[in-house]
């Protein structure tokens, strides 16, 4: 009942999930698998080569963060870095206080450790975000108490692309600490989604810890970075051979680390140009959707400086996200949804819900996240089929949200 394309075009619009490895990154990694495979801890030559690569990579990453190489800890993933930031800090500083501050739209890699700590008697304040998914710096500072030891707020949200005012929070926090003559609370940001397009200068952001990973910036999966400001004490989660200044034991994943450094170098050098290009794509798609599909709603901030350039999250009223995904998949188009049906928990997106979006709106959301391989032709191909898919599913659907309730959400 739907048009069949003559040739299926593979269109990947899910770069917030993961990115393909850049060819240049892959080349940078290759020598360290079979050829120069030494353990950086070994003293003989191949060990020294590996150790050299490790140092070079650390320097490159540190350079982009405006940090010192010794403050870069390589880990096994963004999730591990997030867990290390939360558990490592709480374990090291619990004597000072047992209060944490965060926001409800964090990635689960932060959210679940926080919920776990709550069960262990920690007090966690989730500062509310507004309907665009943005937190106010003022509200964050207002939540600080004498027993707050850590604030953890993501740099940019993976689902709706909202960019949090990290630098502003950081500045206000410096002021707070000065006024109260205390090093607390420390400030961590999960910058996994931001690393490809925003500045990671920790001196300008005033963060004490920062998480990034390889799999979102055209680098390999299974490698992450935790930046830890000098002088900040943290407890390691993984004990063993004492690698990474005893903070993260385990033989270093040299090829992945080399790839991570190369990937970060490439995306950071190219970020202005690529951000402009991706923003145009997002804008182009959103204009087309508004023109060709009735009853849609943009979730998250307006396209502009408060939103990741590559992210477009749209609710198609009266239809369900997983059904849309499956239809799109038939045409080779890949994106994601906030619908409950695709989540492990069978709960719709906690991000959209925390932004005050009713369940039925979360169920009908699609997230398109653009990246290097995407072009205008991809958007045109998508829009050749999306309007008719939405129309078909709406015909099957008994729901007419736009005509009934939640008038305040109407576009």
């Amino acid at each position, binding site marked *: *009942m*739907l048009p069949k394309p003559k040739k299926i075009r593979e269109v990947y619009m899910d770069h917030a999930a993961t990115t393909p490895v850049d060819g240049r990154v892959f080349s940078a990694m290759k020598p360290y698998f079979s050829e120069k495979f030494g353990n950086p801890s070994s003293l003989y030559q191949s060990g020294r080569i590996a150790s050299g690569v490790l140092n070079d990579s650390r320097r490159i990453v540190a350079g982009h963060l405006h940090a010192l190489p010794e403050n870069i800890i390589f880990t096994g993933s963004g999730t591990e870095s997030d867990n290390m930031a939360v558990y490592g800090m709480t374990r090291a500083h619990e004597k000072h206080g047992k209060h944490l501050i965060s926001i409800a739209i964090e990635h689960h890699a932060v959210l679940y450790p926080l919920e776990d700590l709550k069960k262990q008697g920690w007090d966690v304040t989730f500062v509310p975000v507004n309907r665009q998914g943005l937190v106010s710096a003022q509200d964050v500072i207002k939540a600080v108490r004498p027993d707050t030891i850590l604030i953890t707020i993501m740099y940019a949200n993976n689902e709706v692309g909202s960019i949090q005012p990290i630098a502003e929070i950081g500045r206000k926090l410096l002021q707070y600490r000065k006024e109260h003559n205390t090093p607390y609370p420390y400030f961590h940001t999960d910058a996994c989604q931001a690393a490809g397009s925003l500045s990671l200068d920790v001196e300008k952001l005033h963060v004490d810890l920062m998480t990034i990973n390889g799999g979102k910036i055209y680098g390999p999966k299974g490698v992450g970075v935790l930046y830890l400001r000098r002088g900040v004490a943290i407890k390691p989660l993984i004990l063993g051979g004492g690698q990474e200044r005893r903070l993260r034991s385990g033989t270093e994943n040299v090829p992945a680390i080399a790839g991570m450094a190369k990937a970060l170098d490439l995306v950071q050098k190219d970020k202005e140009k690529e951000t402009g290009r991706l923003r145009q794509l997002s804008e182009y798609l959103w204009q087309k959707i508004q023109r060709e599909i009735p009853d849609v709603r943009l979730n998250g901030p307006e396209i502009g400086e408060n939103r990741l350039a590559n992210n477009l999250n749209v609710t198609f009223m*009266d*239809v*369900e*996200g*997983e*059904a849309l995904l*499956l*239809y799109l998949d*038939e045409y080779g188009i890949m994106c994601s949804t906030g*619908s*409950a*049906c*695709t989540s*492990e*928990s*069978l709960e*719709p997106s906690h991000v959209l819900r925390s932004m*005050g979006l*009713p*369940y*039925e709106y979360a*169920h009908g959301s699609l997230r398109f996240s653009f990246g290097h391989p995407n072009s205008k032709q991809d958007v045109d191909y998508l829009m050749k089929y999306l309007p008719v898919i939405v129309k078909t599913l709406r*015909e*099957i*659907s*008994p*729901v007419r*949200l736009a005509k009934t309730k*939640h008038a*305040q959400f109407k576009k």
Partner: protein
Amino acid sequence: MPKKSVKKKNLSGPVDIRTGTGEGWLYSDIVKDHFFNPRNFMHYGEEEKFRYNAMGRVGSPACGDEMVLWLDIDKKTEKIKDCRWRTFGCGSAIASTSVLSEMLKEKDGMKIEDALKLKPQDILARLGGLPERKVHCSVLGDKALQAAVNDYFRRTGQHGRIVTAGSKVIDKTLNITDHDIEEAVLEGAQTLEDVQKKLKVGAGDPSSIPAIEELIRFYAEKYYGE
């Protein structure tokens, strides 16, 4: 959240989860066929023309699924001559309704007596199974059918035959129904803990917790949603 309760081995046919090669589909070929080529759904503009004497609506888009079923029941034979449906939901919900409509219509129509005996498992079997966590999507068809048949009884004045819906036992050990949970939510219970305190649910049968949580959400949205 624990897995839904229907066991794979109760289903005929394979329960297809994505294959390791990435080529396989999340669902069986039958599900796929019904999803992409849904049968007997109510087309735009058909509402005015389609003759029916029974209509049932269940679920809510807030829960992620909503379904409407229209039946044309022959009063003499009590067979379902024709039916139409509309479903808001994921692939499995749409396919389940489509396959149900086929089951109702085939062999010159199912008797409503037999239709009322249909179980979600029967729909699942016809679909060649669903992934475990999708099984709840097929439950709605069975409820919509019940609601539609009740509507028929109402319209034909056979009030004695109406099967009272909405008092489904959720926790078998403590004999707690969805009505009890609705009442608890209306009394201000917002979380599982609140409801458990009021009703002691979940204490008797831990496997009922997911269903209870779903009901709490549903009623909270219904009565307190924006």
